[in-house]
């Protein structure tokens, strides 16, 4: 039935966007954690058995391999003999843009979900006199 699989696909999109934004919030919370590497997830087709064809899922979490910035702060407990320590490679602007994109995609999925629901309920209305 095409309505139920359309609903399942839209739900898989919302689930993936939600998992993406949870990683974004994790990154933002750890902006000032020394040595923290930004986490990213890529989307890929859901190929698990029983999944609706075309559904989407988030792939394995990857760490951003950009070099960690060396922050100069001799009073920091982690500072080495030159007074530097490794900061995190989280870029706030990138994270905010990512969060906004996730929100936009989530809303698009939600709209599709709502529209499919409306279509299937108007189909059901045919049964009433």
């Amino acid at each position, binding site marked *: 039935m095409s309505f139920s699989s359309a609903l399942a696909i839209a739900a898989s999109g919302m689930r993936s*966007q939600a998992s993406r934004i949870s990683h974004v919030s994790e990154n933002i919370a750890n902006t000032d954690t020394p040595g923290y590497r930004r986490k990213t997830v890529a989307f890929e087709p859901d190929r698990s058995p029983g999944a609706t064809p*075309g559904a*989407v899922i988030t792939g394995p979490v990857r760490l951003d391999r950009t070099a960690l910035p060396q922050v100069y702060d001799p009073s920091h407990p982690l500072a080495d003999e030159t007074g530097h320590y490794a900061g995190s490679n989280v870029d706030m602007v990138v994270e905010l843009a990512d969060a906004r994109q996730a929100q*936009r*995609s989530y809303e698009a*999925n939600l709209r599709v979900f709502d*529209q499919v629901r409306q279509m299937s309920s108007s189909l059901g209305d045919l049964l009433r006199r």
Partner: protein
Amino acid sequence: MFDTLDVFGLAQARARHAAARQEEVARNVANADTPGYRARDIIAFEEAFRATGPRDRTPHLSLRTIDAGGPESPNGNTVSLEAEMVRAVDAQRDHNRALNVYRSAMNVLRTSLGR
């Protein structure tokens, strides 16, 4: 019009076409951020229905999917959320229209039966 009840088959085919199209929209929107995903669409209704002909007693639709085209983003994805919204509204309108035709034909039948 009512000797073979073609109108019901036609309305049903149109509604099924719209539902299948809406499913493709859902798939495209869900994959809007999947690298390498190509947006898809269903062939136009005229084309899908002409393949079998309206004289067929049980009209069978060929709901073939095609590449929807569109510009490709750097990660190889061709989904445009704006285009998908337009397509979704199109599908919904088609579906509603088909259901309304079905309902009004049903009302005519009911009236002729005196119920």
